[in-house]
């Protein structure tokens, strides 16, 4: 397969080809413009993590793990548990990813996943406070991109959310000002809703959802939209350079919303309603 990003000229040829295909309602891999690649979600794949999930979206594979511990809350949110999200684009995943500390793309991915979870108010963080201002649950969510063929945002959000939704944490109790875990007693996280994100690529006046790596190198730009539920957007990130025509906004909203419902239905069938409050 052609190596993405290696040379600029094939990209320009690809852009023409892609535009021609989308205009006919087709794509390079045989999908329709508004069609996702096959999606698979597996949960509880890491026994040592409190929550975990592996998500495969076509040729992109993501693993997310949740670890928790007790800690102090942030000074500005004394009555809320802490969420810490980090992401790594592993060198296993692509010849374009290099070992080392997270670069701007990894930081962006982590922050977009964080925004989808935090701003959608997916978790009832106030229920995870054991001693206000002193002892709360700290939830570490780590996302690893294991195999990259474009669009690592949507499967990362799916993996992080599925890992949280199926997470089993120790039952804590506050006894005489001490927080202790009740032996052999586990509980789920207080889940309010399941946010999902939808990535849309733009090529002039056309749109494709869930772009592959090859498509990402040819499109003008792309936009990630996080939906907290059917009718509410909780996060947006335009994540590539390039322009997006204002005239596409209404179609974008319609397609993005429709796809978010599709992705959430798929996730519900995997994680069920465990722990929903």
């Amino acid at each position: 397969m052609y190596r993405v990003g290696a040379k600029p000229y094939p990209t320009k040829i690809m852009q023409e080809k892609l535009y021609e295909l989308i205009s006919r309602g087709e794509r390079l891999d045989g999908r329709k413009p508004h069609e996702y690649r096959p999606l698979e979600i597996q949960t509880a794949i890491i026994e040592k993590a409190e929550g975990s999930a592996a998500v495969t979206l076509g040729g992109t594979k993501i693993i997310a793990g949740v670890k928790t511990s007790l800690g102090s809350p942030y000074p500005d949110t004394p009555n809320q548990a802490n969420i810490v999200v980090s992401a790594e684009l592993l060198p296993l995943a692509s010849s374009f990813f290099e070992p080392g500390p997270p670069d701007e793309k990894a930081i962006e991915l982590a922050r977009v996943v964080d925004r989808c979870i935090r701003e959608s108010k997916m978790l009832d963080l106030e229920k995870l406070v054991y001693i206000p201002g002193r002892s709360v649950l700290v939830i570490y969510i780590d996302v690893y991109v294991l195999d990259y063929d474009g669009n690592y945002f949507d499967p990362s959000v799916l993996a992080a959310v599925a890992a949280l939704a199926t997470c089993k944490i120790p039952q804590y109790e506050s006894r005489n000002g001490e927080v202790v875990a009740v032996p052999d007693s586990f509980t789920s996280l207080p889940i309010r809703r399941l946010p999902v994100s939808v990535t849309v690529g733009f090529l002039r006046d056309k749109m494709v959802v869930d772009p592959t790596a090859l498509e990402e190198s040819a499109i003008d730009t792309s936009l990630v939209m996080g939906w907290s539920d059917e009718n509410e957007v909780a996060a947006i990130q335009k994540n590539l350079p390039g322009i997006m025509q204002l005239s596409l906004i209404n179609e974008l909203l319609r397609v993005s919303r429709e796809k978010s419902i599709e992705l959430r239905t798929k996730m519900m069938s995997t994680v069920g309603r465990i722990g929903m409050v």
Partner: protein
Amino acid sequence: MEKSESKLITEGGRRIDGRALDEMRPLRIEAGVLDKSDGSAYIEMGKTKIYAAVYGPREAHPRHLAQPHKAILNCRYHMASFSVEQRKAPGMTRREVELSKVIREALESVVLLEEFPRSAIDIFIEVIQADAGTRTAGLDAAAVALADAGIPMLDLCSAVAVGKVEGRIVLDPSEEEDKRGEADMPVGMAPRLGSIVLLQLNGRLSSEEFLEALELARKGINIIYELQRKALSKRFSSVVSSQEE
């Protein structure tokens, strides 16, 4: 936490600083404010104060980063340690790394990079006081600095944030509104091209509110665009007049 906090919007539809819902804070843009750089700009938006400087096109460093067919654009958005209430560590935070990326990508959309193969254009944005809307004001200043440096562009980038505060969509939220509001949406456009170059959202909006917010942002962007152009024409007309004298 404290339920007794004052309301952010009065019965009469005024905001805590007296602005109307669709009113921006006082705005000032100046081009060519720093000596050594190839182009520079200064912006004040309420209490937000930002310098932007452009160096280049110049040789790309390290050399292997150079692209055979176009210039590379580097951008550093950075906040001074004293720019915020609680002193910020001087290094780059994750937030600053992300904002540098989205601002750079917005500018990459309009700068004609193909004009300068194998070279680099460096943009430095220094927030000396932060009071909400720093990424958008930083982009406004950077676009003016690029134009000031004489770098060919398809259009300027003009950007402003819109927010949702107590259920109402407001233009250019202040820090207080941003902190206590329900949503913050920075929007950057290339106005002449009718295109979006930067778009982010933090917080929850319905589809209708999103469209309303985008429309309101556009209104603010048109005002900023005019001011950016004025700043540039003032800069170059002053060059002409000083030569005449």
